[in-house]
């Protein structure tokens, strides 16, 4: 237990050597806290849903409405806080779906490299990679009812092949290492070899990719709702808010710009943190 804490301390020390990574970490912690406590923090919690007050509509940023109001009189700042919730939820659920699926498929294909499971799984992966992720996600979500769950499904379909490919490329070279050979000789089960011998050696790149992808998943789902194929109004969603706001350019620039900045901040946070984790893990290996 103590060595575990000790290791954590060492990792944090390495991670915190890069000030930008710490900045990313702080951005993420702050935005997650804001998302969780949105009902308490938001100055106008009722504005997250359908709410109309035309008197305060389309007001530029003031002390009362930090980021201004939209045409319905809803406080943009409050809505951004509430929109962070589906954004983080999407990131969390999509990765919870695609990482296990991609990893297991990549493990199997990589272990049986050159044989039937490899061919079947990796050709299937190639097919899903035959379209840019955004187009694949758009295609799938266009066929389903536009809502949050279906947009998560669409994003997941676009993301799993990247994990399969990443894990495959590592496993196919690891599978001939001595420790894998010896485990085979001793007669360990396939599950033991795949998950206890090989998988632990693939964790670092997967972990780095997960952190970076959190940002990309949020961008992709924001893009879906931007074109109208994601979460539907009046539910708050960053992509939808940017799209709605862009209709009132340039007079009500704040309705589009602040949600857009929010997206960029969150993705920037995950990227800075992901780079930090990568540096930390690669220095641990060396």
């Amino acid at each position, binding site marked *: 237990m103590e060595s575990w804490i000790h290791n954590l301390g060492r990792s944090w020390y390495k991670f915190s050597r890069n000030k930008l990574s710490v900045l990313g970490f702080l951005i993420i912690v702050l935005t997650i806290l804001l998302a969780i406590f949105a009902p308490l923090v938001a100055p106008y919690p009722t504005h997250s849903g359908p709410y109309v007050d035309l008197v305060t509509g389309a007001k530029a940023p003031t002390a009362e409405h930090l980021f201004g109001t939209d045409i319905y009189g809803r406080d943009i700042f409050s809505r951004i806080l509430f929109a962070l919730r589906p954004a983080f939820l999407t990131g969390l659920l999509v990765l919870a779906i695609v990482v296990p699926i991609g990893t297991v498929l990549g493990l199997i294909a990589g272990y049986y490299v050159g044989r039937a499971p490899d061919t079947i799984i990796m*050709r*299937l992966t*190639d*097919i*899903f990679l*035959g*379209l*840019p*992720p*955004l*187009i694949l996600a*758009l*295609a*799938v979500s*266009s*066929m*389903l*009812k536009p809502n949050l769950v279906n947009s998560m499904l669409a994003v997941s379909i676009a993301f799993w092949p990247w994990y399969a490919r990443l894990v495959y490329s590592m496993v196919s070279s690891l599978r001939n290492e001595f420790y894998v050979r010896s485990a085979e000789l001793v007669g360990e089960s396939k599950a033991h070899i795949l998950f206890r011998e090989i998988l632990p050696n693939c964790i670092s790149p997967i972990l780095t990719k997960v952190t970076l992808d959190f*940002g990309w998943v949020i*961008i992709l789902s*924001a*893009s879906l709702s*931007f*074109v*109208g*194929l994601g979460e539907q109004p009046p539910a708050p969603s960053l992509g939808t808010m*940017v799209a709605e706001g*862009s209709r009132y*350019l*340039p007079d009500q*620039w704040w309705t*589009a*710009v602040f949600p*857009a900045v929010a*997206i*960029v901040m969150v*993705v*920037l946070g995950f*990227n800075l943190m992901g780079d930090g984790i990568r540096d930390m893990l690669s220095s641990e290996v060396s």
Partner: protein
Amino acid sequence: MKLLFFILRRLALSLVVIVGLSILIFVIARIVPGDPARMALGANAPQEVVDRLRVRMNLDKPIYTQYVLWLGGVLQGDFGDSLYTKRPVVEDIAEFLPATVELVIFAGIIMAAGGILLGTLSAKYNNTWVDTIIRLFSYIGVVTPAFVFAILFMLLFGYLWPILPIMGRLSTGVVEPVRMTGMVVVDGVLQGNFPAAFDGIKHMILPALALALGGLSQEARITRSSMVDNLNKDFVLAHHAYGIPSQRILWRYVMKPSLIPTVSVLGLDFAVLFGNAFLVEMVFNWPGLSRYGINVMLQKDLNAISAVILVLGLIFVLTNIVTDLIVSFLDPRIRLGAAKGE
């Protein structure tokens, strides 16, 4: 000969991807809950009319027969009719694709040239203020979605400091070139209609920049890191010892090996431009395939959606092949490795 084998193998694998993609698209287009014929005709159409359309759309046959019939049509260039524009999908694609291709090529040039230039400058002035600014710029470029750039540019250069047009492909009053390739700039130049070509380029600048900046930033980062690696190699030291000017070493001897990772990513990013065009065309009201794609998606127009996706998939696969060939040209290890059959 072995190189030919390498290329043939690459093409065969791509064929598998394309066939697989056609199945995938077909399956996606058939998982729609509800009856496509009913959706096409609306809730008020009499049942027998819907049934007739079902037969005409082959919806009464088993799914694999439907696929074969669909694929047969597609191979002959028949994607069926669009329910949205009420005409053959092929005509729609022929009308809208050139605008997107023109925009994406323009953006691709900005992306490649800008990314390589910035990356090289960043490596040359490694750890100076030039490097810091470029790295900061490219970090922000990577994490900002294309549609955010689109809106910011529109606001900055369309309204706040209106120096560039933000809507459509040509200004009103400019004589439109006769449609030959469908690309305004190309047609304008071919017909000597230079005002139109010039105006077309002006209309492309903002959407193309919004499209290109993400990839450009990524290219700059990759070029910088591979160039910094290469600048520390022994052959550079040897060149310096021979007294070869630094500029020449940088632009001639370090450039080529440093571009290998850049080109690999460039190929992928070029194809991603087609994806992001979906968002950017919407903002700038660009009459391209992607804006058409969004419209048919919102209308659940199955024939048109499948066609758009399949066309984009084909472009993506072709881009990947070309990228692989360019990389194998740049990288003798891959070229010779392939020749050795590795």
